[in-house]
C-alpha cells in the first residue's frame, strides 16, 4: 500500500463528511479501510471529533433574551415614530413647494419692486429671489442628510 493510497483515503474520509462521496470513491475507501489499520484509526478519530463537536452546547442567558426583546421593542417604536416624523416632513415639504410655486409670480414682482426702489442691480434682486426659492429646499436636504448620517453611524 503506497503513501498515496493513505493520503487519498484520508482525503476521502474527510470528503465523505464534508461533501459526500461518489459510489466509486465510497467503494474504494471502504475496501481500503478493511485492510488498513492506520486509515481505520484516522476514520474513527475523525468521526469521534465530529461527534464531540456536535455535542457542544451553549447556554443562553434568559436575562440576555429579555433585554434583547425590550431593546427591540423600544427600537421598533423609535423607528415607527421616526417614520411618522418623516412623513410629516414630506407633507410639509410638498405643501411648502405648492405654496412657493403659487406665490412665485407675486414674490418675483415684490423683489423687482424692492430692487427698483433701493436701486440695486437686477442680478442682485434676482439672486435674492433665487435664494428665497431654493433655501428651504437646501435646508430640508441638509436635515435629511444629517439624519441619514446619524442613522448610519448608529448602525
Amino acid at each position: 500500500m503506497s503513501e498515496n493510497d493513505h493520503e487519498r483515503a484520508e482525503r476521502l474520509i474527510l470528503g465523505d463528511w464534508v461533501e459526500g462521496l461518489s459510489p466509486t470513491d465510497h467503494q474504494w475507501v471502504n475496501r481500503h479501510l478493511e485492510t488498513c489499520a492506520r486509515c481505520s484509526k484516522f476514520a474513527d478519530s475523525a468521526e469521534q471529533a465530529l461527534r464531540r463537536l456536535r455535542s457542544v452546547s451553549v447556554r443562553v442567558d434568559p436575562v440576555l433574551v429579555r433585554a434583547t426583546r425590550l431593546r427591540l421593542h423600544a427600537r421598533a417604536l423609535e423607528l415607527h415614530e421616526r417614520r411618522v416624523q418623516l412623513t410629516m416632513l414630506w407633507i410639509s415639504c410638498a405643501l411648502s413647494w405648492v405654496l412657493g410655486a403659487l406665490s412665485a409670480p407675486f414674490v418675483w414682482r415684490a423683489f423687482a419692486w424692492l430692487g427698483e426702489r433701493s436701486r440695486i442691480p437686477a442680478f442682485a434682486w434676482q439672486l435674492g429671489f433665487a435664494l428665497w426659492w431654493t433655501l428651504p429646499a437646501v435646508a430640508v436636504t441638509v436635515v435629511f442628510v444629517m439624519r441619514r448620517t446619524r442613522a448610519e453611524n448608529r448602525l
Partner: protein
Amino acid sequence: MERETQALARGLRRRDPDLLDRLIEQYQYRLLRYLLYLTGSREAAEDFFQETWVRVIDRGHQYNGKFKFETWLFTIARNLVIDFRRRKTAGSLDALSEPGEGQPMAEPAAPDNLSPADLAAAHEESERIWAALVRLPAFYREVLLLRFQEDLSLEEIAAVVAAPLSTVKSRLYRGLSELREKLETEKV
C-alpha cells in the same frame, strides 16, 4: 417554504413585534452559538447578539425571502463582527482566532437526570472540546459550525461567509482535519 419566507419578509418590513419575539425565541440559541464560534468570547458574543437583532429590525426591509432566514441572520451577525473588528484593528475574521477570556463559552445542557458527577464530567468534556476549538482559526470554526451543527448546505455556507464554494470546502477539509488532530494529539 418559499411562502413561509415571503410571509417572514413581509412581517420584517412591517417590523411586526410579535414576529420579532417569535424569531428571537426560535433563533436565540443558534445565533448565540454561531457568535460564540465566531468571536471565541462569551462577552463579545452576547454584545453582538443584541446588535444583530437590532440590525435585523433596522434592515428587515432588505430580507427578500430568497434565502432561509437563518442564512440571512448569520450573514448579518458575521458582517457586524467583521465591521467591528475592522474599525478596531483594521483586521478581518482572521483576527478573531484568539480565545476569549472570562466566562466559559460552552456549557453542557443540564438535564435533571444527570448526577452531579455526570454533570461535572460533561462540563469537563465541554471545556476540553472548546479548548481545542478556540485554538482553531475563526474561519475554520465558523464553517465547521455551519456545516456540522447547523447542517447548512455548502452553497448556503458560501452565501453566509461570502466566499467561493471551493474556499468553503477547503476550509471544511482543513478545519475538520485540524480539529481531529487537536483532539487526537492532546488526548482530550
